[in-house]
């Protein structure tokens, strides 16, 4: 399946991983190092990044086509803001369309207060969800988001029944996550994340 970013799930997982590693208390990385590491990772995974654009109302944008994927980021952003834009665009890639072939598509990240006054409902819904997923990536805890967002293959499961239960739980969690900000907060709590991981391990591991 082709997504807005090649191998979006792997890219998101790796981005979250390097951001988590860099928060090790003994030697935390500076924002500049984090932004450089994120860009390097994206480039290695096939996303062309340009941080030199003189954008006005946009922080950045993603363009994706069969020719490739590129992220263009405003040159005026701080390192932290640049990192946020990358995480946000990757979140959009996880949530965006997928299909056997990639169509020409774009995602725009607006400067706060400079976005269009009217946007289609589906765009607004995706934007709210992308906010939550981007926060999970930036915190280095992708697992704070429902698993179906970043891993559509739930594995073999212990059997047909447990696989069905597991799938139902994940679909329910994703549906709640899409609709409720309160659930987004609850779902990101470490204790809830740990619990869902345990349930997934129990039901999802092969017998």
């Amino acid at each position, binding site marked *: 399946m082709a997504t807005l970013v090649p191998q979006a799930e792997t890219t998101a997982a790796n981005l979250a991983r390097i951001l988590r590693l860099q928060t090790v208390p003994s030697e935390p990385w500076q924002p500049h190092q984090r932004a450089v590491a994120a860009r390097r990772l994206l480039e290695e995974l096939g996303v062309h990044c340009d941080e030199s654009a003189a*954008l006005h*109302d946009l922080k950045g944008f993603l363009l994706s086509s069969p020719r490739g994927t590129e992220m263009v980021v405003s040159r005026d952003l701080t390192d932290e803001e640049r990192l946020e834009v990358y995480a946000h665009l990757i979140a959009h890639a996880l949530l965006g*369309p997928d299909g056997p072939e990639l169509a020409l598509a774009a995602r725009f990240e607006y400067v706060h207060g400079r976005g269009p006054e009217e946007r289609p409902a589906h765009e607004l819904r995706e934007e709210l969800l992308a906010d939550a997923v981007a926060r999970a990536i930036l915190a280095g805890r992708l697992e704070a988001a429902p698993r179906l967002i970043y891993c559509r293959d739930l594995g073999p499961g212990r059997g047909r029944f447990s696989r069905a239960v597991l799938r139902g739980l994940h679909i329910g969690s994703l549906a709640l996550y899409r609709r409720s900000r309160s659930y987004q907060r609850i779902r990101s709590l470490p204790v809830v994340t740990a619990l869902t991981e345990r349930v997934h391990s129990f039901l999802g591991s092969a017998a």
Partner: protein
Amino acid sequence: MPDRDEVQVARWSAIKGRVGSSLRELRQGEPAASRSQARLAGELEELGYHVTQSMVSRYEQGILEAPLTLERMVGWALCCEALSSTAFKELLALAGYYLPWNAVDLRSFDDLLRSYRRLSLADQVIVRARLLWHILGIEASDTAAADASLEW
């Protein structure tokens, strides 16, 4: 006239009137979104084309002998408010280029155009330049290989 193949000249002579009127329709579009020939020439210049206002006028009238290249046609179309995926496909088909987009691709392109038109003009210019390379299949840093990269 510069050195051109007879076949190329004959082909362009056969289609230049229809291509010209299609391009004029795209430029004029809805009255509120109409672009002047001067503005279009300026926007094409920003994209890296050397098309003057007089050339825009003569292309639209179908009286310019120099064939309009695929690159210019795509750039011209992207500058027009009235562009839609269907209009784009039809324009290119008129000029003999097949756009291999299915229904999903066409819808996706229309969505993209809608989002793109909501941007400020300054941002539109930057997005449009990138879009051009994606459609033509050329990397911006590798313009020398432009002709070789086309897959039309």
